[in-house]
């Protein structure tokens, strides 16, 4: 029934036979327990038939993928065959291999396994081999990247010729040693509490919990109100204090632990014309991005991080699953800039000053934030009227919101800007975070100039450089129309020129 894996076909690691059933049992444990409890309550002899099926089922289904999945590496292709009834064969030409990512969950690591994902430049078409033994996975990765290098004869990381694969085929250089770009420095741990991205996860978890909270019988309007009255009467200040101190302490623990777990043994190297990142305490990740596909970088300095001089860095690449890959943990700004410059192979784009967008853009930034604040105030006023809450609260809220909006508006204007640094387009953006996006002009595949009615009246426009890399668009908000058009013309010579008025 199962074809023997001849002709160079190999199976996944036999330890997969342990991996999948354990996972399957883990997933099936709840239904099994429910079923067993249900059966034992119904008290019929029937249970003794069902029980083994419920246990053996996951084992069999867990074993099927190992029995039916084979892979093979030919001179030109990697092929993977899988499926029981529907035979599924995926192939990828070796010269199209863009990335080889290794990942190992804790379970994988206990068993000495790794999951291999091969990206081929077509966004959602990744070849996955789950799982190979760690040594096989490493060997496969090295082989794939080496072969790609041999297949693409031109030296990949040379930025100036990367779009012209047919010119000047150079002899492949002898395999260079990996160059280390960055390595974890545990003094960076000081940035962990200031990086709020993990807070979003925490908030999500709390949100999920509150879903259950809604169903609790004690939580209704009346108890809420009486609780509130009780709080206001006795110990509002004390309770708030205790809660915020406890929250802060919890946040410290969560953020530092999260940082350690995610970035344990973080190492970023450049080898085989690729950037190669490894990190992780429990789940280890190994991500490879082909440098020829990296079209730019994005440096993000969130508000709190900037206060302590920290930054994060991502690469913008084409043909990776989602083109934005974070390549550095929260780290000192100088490190992010240094690595960014190494990736871009240019010094200017991450440090050059940006051209500001002018007073009209500032006015629009302010208006945008104030409008949202006003909408919130109106909503709050409505709520106050409905629930009969004191108008003082609304007034206080309005003052706070409007001040905050003014501050956010000003900060988002200050982050706004653009520059053309050599052959890189630089865009500054962000409301609270300062974000600098750098895109190779070679990577620009079109322009969109959009003007709302208001923008037309004051001669501003939103200029979007479209690209296949990263989020697929780089937005320059509220730039003066003629400045934007001149910028587009300068960034992509010959494209816009014929559409300019003489």
């Amino acid at each position, binding site marked *: 029934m199962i074809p023997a894996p001849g002709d160079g076909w190999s199976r996944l690691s036999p330890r997969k036979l342990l991996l999948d059933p354990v996972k399957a049992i883990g997933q099936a444990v709840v239904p099994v327990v429910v079923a067993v409890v249900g059966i034992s309550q119904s008290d019929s002899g029937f249970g003794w038939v069902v029980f083994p099926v419920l246990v053996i089922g996951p084992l069999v289904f867990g074993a099927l993928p190992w029995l039916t999945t084979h892979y093979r590496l030919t001179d030109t292709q990697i092929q993977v065959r899988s499926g029981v009834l529907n035979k599924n064969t995926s192939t990828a030409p070796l010269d199209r291999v863009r990335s080889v990512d290794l990942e190992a969950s804790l379970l994988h690591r206990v068993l000495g396994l790794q999951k291999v994902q091969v990206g081929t430049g077509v966004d959602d078409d990744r070849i996955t081999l789950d799982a190979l033994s760690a040594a096989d996975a490493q060997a496969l990765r090295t082989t794939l990247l080496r072969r790609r290098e041999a297949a693409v004869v031109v030296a990949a990381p040379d930025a100036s010729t990367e779009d012209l694969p047919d010119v000047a085929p150079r002899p492949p250089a002898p395999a260079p040693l990996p160059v280390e770009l960055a390595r974890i420095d545990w003094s960076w741990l000081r940035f962990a509490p200031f990086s709020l991205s993990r807070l979003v996860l925490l908030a999500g978890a709390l949100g999920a919990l509150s879903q259950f909270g809604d169903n609790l019988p004690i939580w209704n309007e009346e108890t809420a109100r009486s609780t509130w009255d009780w709080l206001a009467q006795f110990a509002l200040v004390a309770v708030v204090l205790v809660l915020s101190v406890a929250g802060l302490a919890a946040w410290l623990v969560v953020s530092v632990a999260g940082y350690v777990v995610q970035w344990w043994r973080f190492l970023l190297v450049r080898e085989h014309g690729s950037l190669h990142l490894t990190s992780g305490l429990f789940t280890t990740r190994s991500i490879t991005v082909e440098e020829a596909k990296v079209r730019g970088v994005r440096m993000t300095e969130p508000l709190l991080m900037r206060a302590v001089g920290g930054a994060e860095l991502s690469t913008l690449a084409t043909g990776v699953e989602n083109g934005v890959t974070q390549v550095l943990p929260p780290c000192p700004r100088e490190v992010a800039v240094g690595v960014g410059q190494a990736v871009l192979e240019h010094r200017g784009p991450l440090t050059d000053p940006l051209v500001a967008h002018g007073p009209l853009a500032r006015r629009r930034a302010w208006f945008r934030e104030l409008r949202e604040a006003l909408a919130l105030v109106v909503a709050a006023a409505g709520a106050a009227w409905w629930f009969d809450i004191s108008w003082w609260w609304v007034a206080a809220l309005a003052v706070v919101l409007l001040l905050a909006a003014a501050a956010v508006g000003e900060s988002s204007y200050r982050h706004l800007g653009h520059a053309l640094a050599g052959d890189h387009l630089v865009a500054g953006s962000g409301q609270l975070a300062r974000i600098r996006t750098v895109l190779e002009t070679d990577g620009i595949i079109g322009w*969109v100039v959009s*003007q*709302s009615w208001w923008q037309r009246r004051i001669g501003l426009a939103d200029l*979007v450089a*479209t690209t296949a*890399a990263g989020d697929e668009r780089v937005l320059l908000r509220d730039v003066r129309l003629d400045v934007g058009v*001149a910028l587009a013309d300068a960034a992509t010579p010959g494209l816009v020129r014929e559409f300019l008025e003489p």
Partner: protein
Amino acid sequence: MSDVGAEPIEREPIVPRPVLREPAHRVSPQAVPFWRVSALIGDTVIVGAAAVAYVVVPDVPGWTIVLVLLVAAAAVAHVVLMPRIRYRVHRWEVTDTAVHTREGWIGRQTRIAPINRVQTVDSRQGALMRLFGLASITVTTASAAGPITVDCLDAETAREVVARLTAITAAGEDDAT
């Protein structure tokens, strides 16, 4: 904006103030009745729903009739004005190197994409469009932000443009990213 043929005195340091010219061609004149009819259909549904709600819902306050009338007035303005403004604004051009379009009626959007980065060329003709002998072309690049649509060409022109674009893009070789 730019003083063409004015005296050659430096009035300000020579800062070029480039202005995008409009694309060369208008869309088909048939687009005006097409837009009008489709707007009419959509707006009739909305106004009808509002009117029905006003009649059916019991005990509506009297002033809501004003809302219904406002919606109706907006719909009439939309049907009358939108197609004409649109026809003035929508323009397109395909040169040997780039596709250039302008669209919108309240806002404006100008799009330019180099032809050597074009990946797919689709044309689309809905039932109503066929009635008016119209077709739309969508040109996509490797960027999700980059698709360019030329709405409401007459069907014959659309066929020609598609054929031309396909011929040009087939000649390209790299993967257009």
